[in-house]
């Protein structure tokens, strides 16, 4: 009897653990489907099926249309490029890595630094390298990148004359109370090269312009975390509504590269994020 129960339990467990490729993208929103040759790239995002200006966490599945199976050991790369009438440039983006504890899912991120339009368009090339299929480049052209209603990304020129790109990663759905706040900070090396900036500090001063510039206590400025490459801190929000997260970016020698402290007369910094919930 006991043996039978164990057997049944074991069987059930196996069934539950059978995760399909479809399960692994459950809850994700499809952004694009790109086919070339024997392969199809499926591009996903978490909350919305649109690519937007600023930080985009992108999930990828790759299907071999001949075998009908999803590739589990792919080495993927990508390359974004903005085509403008007079010039073209890239944006900050990550490498692509396998999502832990999945078989078929890969992820990476883009920080798009401008929206696409009729004239100016983004192009993203996805590459797949494997033993036999050395190259399977798929180009999505044009890739539509929309602007966001609330500001979650800011580019600015620092006092050192460098172009910086600051993108809010978290919180995606803010709550009243203490939120983990995370952001990426990049700088432009040339039109096609954007490098992460290390060991700066991003000071935050959350304010409610509708409430006499009310602020919250106990906020923790964002500092660089070398293991994740993210800047992270603590953001306290005392109520729901519209918040302006005023920013000051200081370099490793504590010099303000951009941003203004809030005082009686200065009600907002020159750089800020916006949250509304």
């Amino acid at each position, binding site marked *: 009897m006991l043996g039978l129960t164990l057997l049944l339990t074991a069987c059930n467990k196996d069934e539950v653990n059978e995760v399909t490729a479809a399960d692994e993208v459950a809850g994700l929103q499809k952004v694009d489907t790109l086919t070339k040759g024997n392969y199809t790239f499926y591009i996903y995002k978490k909350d919305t099926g649109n690519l937007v200006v600023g930080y985009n966490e992108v999930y990828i599945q790759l299907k071999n249309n001949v075998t009908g199976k999803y590739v589990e050991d792919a080495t993927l790369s990508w390359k974004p490029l903005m085509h403008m009438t007079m010039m073209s440039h890239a944006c900050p983006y990550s490498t692509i890595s396998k999502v832990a504890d999945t078989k078929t899912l890969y992820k990476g991120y883009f920080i798009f630094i401008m929206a696409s339009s009729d004239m100016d368009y983004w192009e993203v090339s996805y590459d797949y390298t494997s033993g036999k299929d050395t190259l399977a480049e798929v180009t999505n052209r044009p890739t539509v990148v929309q602007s966001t209603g609330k500001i979650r990304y800011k580019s600015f020129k620092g006092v050192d004359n460098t172009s910086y790109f600051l993108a809010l990663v978290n919180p995606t759905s803010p709550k009243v109370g203490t939120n983990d706040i995370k952001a990426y900070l990049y700088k432009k090396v040339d039109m096609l090269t954007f490098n992460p900036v290390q060991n700066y500090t991003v000071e935050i001063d959350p304010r409610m312009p509708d409430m006499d510039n009310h602020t919250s*206590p*106990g906020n923790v400025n964002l500092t660089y975390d070398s293991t994740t490459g993210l800047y992270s801190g603590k953001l306290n929000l005392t109520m729901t509504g519209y918040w302006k997260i005023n920013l000051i970016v200081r370099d490793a020698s504590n010099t303000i590269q951009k941003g203004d402290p809030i005082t009686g007369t200065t009600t907002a910094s020159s750089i800020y994020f916006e949250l509304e919930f």
Partner: protein
Amino acid sequence: MNWNFKIVIIKAALCTGCCFGLNLLAIAQNKTDSIKSRELKEVVVTGKTGLDSIHESKPLSSMDEHLQKLSNVNLIKRGGYAWEPTINNMATERISVTIDGMKIFCACTDRMDPVTSYVEILNLDNIHVGSGLAGNLHSTNSIGGGLDLKLQKAGFHARKLNVTLNSAYETNGNYRIIGSGLAYSSLKFYTNAGVFYRKSDDYKAGNNSTVNFSQFEKLNLFTNFGYRLSAQKSIEGTVIYDVASNVGYPALTMDVKSAKGFITSLSYKQENISEVLFSWETKLYFNNIIHIMDDTKRPNVAMHMDMPGKSRTAGYYSSLSGRVGKHNFVISHDSYYNQSSAEMTMYPKDAANKPMFMYTWPDIRTFNAGLTLDDRYIIDLKNTLQLTTKASFQRDGVESTFGYNTLQMYYPDMTQYQNRGLWSVSGKYTHYLKDIQLKAGVGCGTRAPSPTEAYGFYLYNSFDNYEYIGDPQLKNESSVEGNIAFALTKPTYSISLDGSYFYFSNYIVGKPNTSLSTMTIGASGVKVYQNLNHATIFNANLNTKYIFLKYFHWLNHLGYSLGQDNKNNPLPLIAPFSYSTSLDYVNKKFSAGVDLQGATKQTNFSAEYGEDLTPAYFIVNTSVGYDFIFGHVAPTVKIGIENVLDRKYSTYADWNNIPRKGRNVYINLKINL
């Protein structure tokens, strides 16, 4: 829990020790052989059937006006309705207000709805005012005193039906009152019922100046009933439904759309159980208060807000009284569970932005269970010693995760719930000497922080223009109290003098925290409740009464209070020197009176808490009354003029100095059918 109780018992023993010492001293000093048994005035009778209407110059006056006449009671006034009572100059957080022993907690974070606003004075039999720690056996966290509003009970008597019709009109504010009360008694069953309606427009202060937003409307339905199961056993029940609507608060930035109270109880009573046990009453009760503020009628509102609040309490008490030898004892166990929740939704001027939401009372839960022992030891015909002790366990916290997350930003290491042990011990010695009565009492006890003091979030106080945040980690406030009273009563005159002194440790009060940011547009800053090292409050009263030419009664009252914090700065809302004198003519059915009330300049005001110097004032009131009889119908008519000189004045207790009523002519009519 056990551990808490041990501490309580040890502390209790210490305190009673010191009380005994003092009492023995008092006994030694007062040896005479005369016998008089007369209590100092602690119970003031008001209301309909319990009321000798010929002696009440204005029987249909509001609850607030009645409360104002009680010794040691003052009222903080924010408008024409729902004034907040204080006892010994201590307000809601330090006193208890119960209805027939039922605990009820107001639902408004801005104190717009004191418990006294949910009953109708005409349904009351009397109001028990208890001063200090021994104020009320059923009360909790009340170191300043307690009010117990005793509802009318027709009782089990010979079959009788009594119906009264009441109506009143007051010129000032076009104030209309109409109501009817019914009392039916029989040996097996009794019931009381009442329907009362009051409505007033804006009242006028002196010099004919209208105080805008001082209107109100109130409907109260009440019933009490009792059923006798056997000679000794009975059940009793109460249902009250009270709705105040369109209530203006001229002293505040917003009004009240509606304040609804549903109050109910059921009790089981056994009487004359044995030689030792007199009565045993167990009562279950529940009440639900819903309070909705309204700023839509105000001009120039910086930001429209919705601010609903609710307070629900379920509780019970079981009280056993009896006598062993010379000991009259009461053993009572009580417990209650309260939910107080209030929220605020603010609508930004820029309609594109989303509304802003927060909890001002983040679904605060309080459970309290206590045990009270009271022993009135009649040593001999001249000496009585009363000892009262209470120990209770309290668990309070915030149920809302949203609210908990909010408070954690301010107190990162706070816990969602916490336990507190509370206790009090008091002793009172009474000595009777011919016409003289002497009383001396000592007590000590603690109170837990109120929901606002512990968990309140950005509660705007229009008095000092600060926003208040609670501190869940506050210590209990404790008080050591001493009181003394002397009364001399002769057939034609009486004099009484009483004084009380409270020494608080860990006194809870809001202090500015400049590191915190305001929310309300234009607020001066944010205050956080904290424990002050100590504070003191002293109260003294002198009352005299002289009866001359058979029908004339001349009464005088002088009152003085002083409240200081740990730096000897004045505490807020402490009464200045006040006086009143009245001359009444009472001859069977006819009565007439004139009285003068006033106060000196309030020099010990607390600028820190938004007070300013309140000038001296006095007002004069007059009244006449007559009891008619037309066959079986006996109408009583009372006519009077209040503030005859039409003075424009405000007292220390008027929020933001809003002026009190100017001249007012009233007529009260009561018909017994």
